[in-house]
């Protein structure tokens, strides 16, 4: 097993609003190995993006605050908890050791600076290159992400690129300092499928070539199945299931994961057959349900579900936050002893 470059333990991020405390991320733990691809999947409001912005320490404060937990980054030399760093130390990590790309490349690129300016800035800042060296490296980076006529494009502005090309520029900027971890927050959601295929292909290629670990945050189960080795499924601020992608998709354990997979229409399946949706709506995170958070929408709920289930192993290598896992070969919960949810609410 490869060394963990990033380890998140019992992360809790809350937003203090006039209406009350929003428990956006509530006790999330996960790890990413060197060169690994981890998917974080869930619907809007499940806390997947807040988890990512917490790792980058980009939570707007106020109203947001990381109230508990640790985020350990191991770059091979030393292991630091980035929640203990001050702002200037954090600036050294952000964009350098951990980089992030966002859903909409138009809003994350500066419209009044050329692509060249934006590419060379981190190189000069983090790697201490001169302007000329940085430009040479910027051209190399643009070529690597598949932008034609890279030398000329250095002087172009973001609006002169198409959506797919802009996302390539974002990836070039993100990878410019050879980060250990690349967090991609819905990087292809704003793109058309044929362009999405190009970008996913590029990301997989860069992952293999440079060993950059990727955390892929998405709502699209297809994207996860395509590029991720391991998956975390999030619901209402918690990880409800985690495991290897092939196990989780072939044998989902948590009723929410089962429901998600049944909700997606698939190409080549029986056309005109009704889908099986999950009834109801996701909970309000100002007042999450007591016990299992999926309980109000779950068709397998029982009295026991009013107690919070821990995230525990239900099948080899597969963990679910559920008292009555639905997958094949799942072990009855009474018999399972491995509770990895550190500090789970008791």
């Amino acid at each position, binding site marked *: 097993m490869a060394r963990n470059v990033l380890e998140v333990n019992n992360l809790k991020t809350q937003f203090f609003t006039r209406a009350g405390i929003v428990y956006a991320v509530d006790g999330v733990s996960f790890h990413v190995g060197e060169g690994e691809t981890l998917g974080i999947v869930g*619907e*809007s409001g499940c806390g997947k993006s807040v988890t990512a912005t917490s790792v980058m320490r980009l939570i707007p404060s106020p109203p947001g605050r990381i109230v508990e937990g640790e985020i350990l980054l191991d770059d091979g030399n030393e292991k630091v908890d980035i929640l203990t760093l001050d702002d200037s130390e954090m600036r050294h990590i952000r964009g350098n050791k951990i980089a992030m790309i966002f859903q909409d490349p138009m809003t994350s690129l500066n419209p009044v600076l050329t692509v060249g300016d934006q590419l060379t800035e981190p190189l000069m800042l983090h790697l201490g290159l001169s302007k000329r060296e940085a430009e040479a490296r910027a051209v190399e980076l643009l070529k690597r992400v598949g932008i034609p006529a890279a030398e000329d494009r250095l002087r172009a502005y973001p609006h002169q690129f*198409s959506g*797919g*090309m802009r996302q390539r520029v974002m990836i070039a900027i993100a990878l410019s300092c050879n980060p250990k971890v690349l967090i991609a927050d819905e990087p292809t959601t704003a793109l*058309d*499928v*044929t*362009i*999405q*295929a*190009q970008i*996913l*292909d590029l990301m997989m290629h860069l992952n293999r070539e440079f060993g950059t670990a990727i955390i892929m945050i998405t*709502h*699209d*189960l*297809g*994207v*996860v*199945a*395509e590029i*991720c080795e391991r998956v975390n499924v999030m619901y209402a601020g918690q990880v409800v299931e985690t495991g290897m*992608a*092939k196990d989780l*998709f*072939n044998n989902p354990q948590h009723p929410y994961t089962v*429901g*998600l*997979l*049944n*909700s*997606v*229409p*698939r*190409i*080549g*399946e029986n*056309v*005109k057959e*009704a*889908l*099986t*949706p*999950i*009834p109801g*709506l*996701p909970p309000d995170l100002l007042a999450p349900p007591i016990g299992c958070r999926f309980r109000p929408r779950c068709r397998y709920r029982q009295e026991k579900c009013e107690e919070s289930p821990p995230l525990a192993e239900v099948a080899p290598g597969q963990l679910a936050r559920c008292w009555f896992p639905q997958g094949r070969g799942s072990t009855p919960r009474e018999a399972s002893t491995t509770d990895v949810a550190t500090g789970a609410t008791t």
Partner: protein
Amino acid sequence: MATQAKDTSVTTPNGANGPTDNILEVTGLKKYFHIGGGFLSKNSALTIRAVDDVSFAVRRGETFGLVGESGCGKTTLGQTIIRLYNPTEGKIVFNGADISQMGANELRKHRRGMQMIFQDPSASLDPRMTVGSIISEPLNIFGVGSKEERRERVRELLRVVGLNSYFVNRYPHEFSGGQRQRIGIARSIALNPELVICDEPVSALDVSIQAQVLNLLRKLQDDLNLTYLFIAHNLAVVAHISDRVGVMYLGKMVEIGESRAITEHPKHPYTQALISAIPLPIPGKRRDRIILEGDVPSPANPPTGCRFHPRCPIARADCAEVEPLLREIEPDHWVACHYAQ
């Protein structure tokens, strides 16, 4: 398997050779937008050919899916059919009447049978109107029934789309995205239309909610004998709900066929690439992916000949010169490509 396929083709009432009952016929439809040039100059700087010579028909009672990537003209086509835009050229025949050049008064009578559901339910519902007044607006405009009857009809419509009838006095912001889309659906079926144009009705919704709305649309179709023109960019969703599918690229229809034929045996190289690009929710099962080079060209200056030729993996020299027309490659399966087999 083969016999099954045969059976369906025999029992399909609107088969290629059988009598066809088309609720909508679109012939040679064009919609150009002129941009720039100032309002006094005769020549505009740019002409965007959003929809360029599109012909197809929608059969009564079916769901016809329209799929394509952003900028392919699918939304403009939908909005031109319902006459939110005036067509530049071509014919739109709805229920036997050509509505393409009709004046506003006459159009209103025909448009009653044709309604639309929009993509973004928060933008298409007036935030200052209650749900009750939103849904009863079409009823008021057409003077349907008495005030009491209209009020009762609104309650009934809310129940039909799966909302509580005591929501009538609430405002759109009090609802979730999925519920707002249900309100939009209730408004669209208020006048008992025959044809509903659904423009990306589920793409703003989360997957678990998306499935709820798709199932509702299907149930309403059965209960109310609706015909759908279902426009979306997600081929998996379109193929799931549609009987037949039309694929658009850069203002042109490039392939039309039964949903199953399109997804299982796509003929046009663009459709093939589009299908191969969809990530499957099955790990390890990667299709042989056809990755298209480059981006979609601008509809202001489309490529000559076949519009797909600069990105096409099987393009030959004459593809740049001769524009391919839709031809019937198999029964009820049309493709606009010189070399498709």
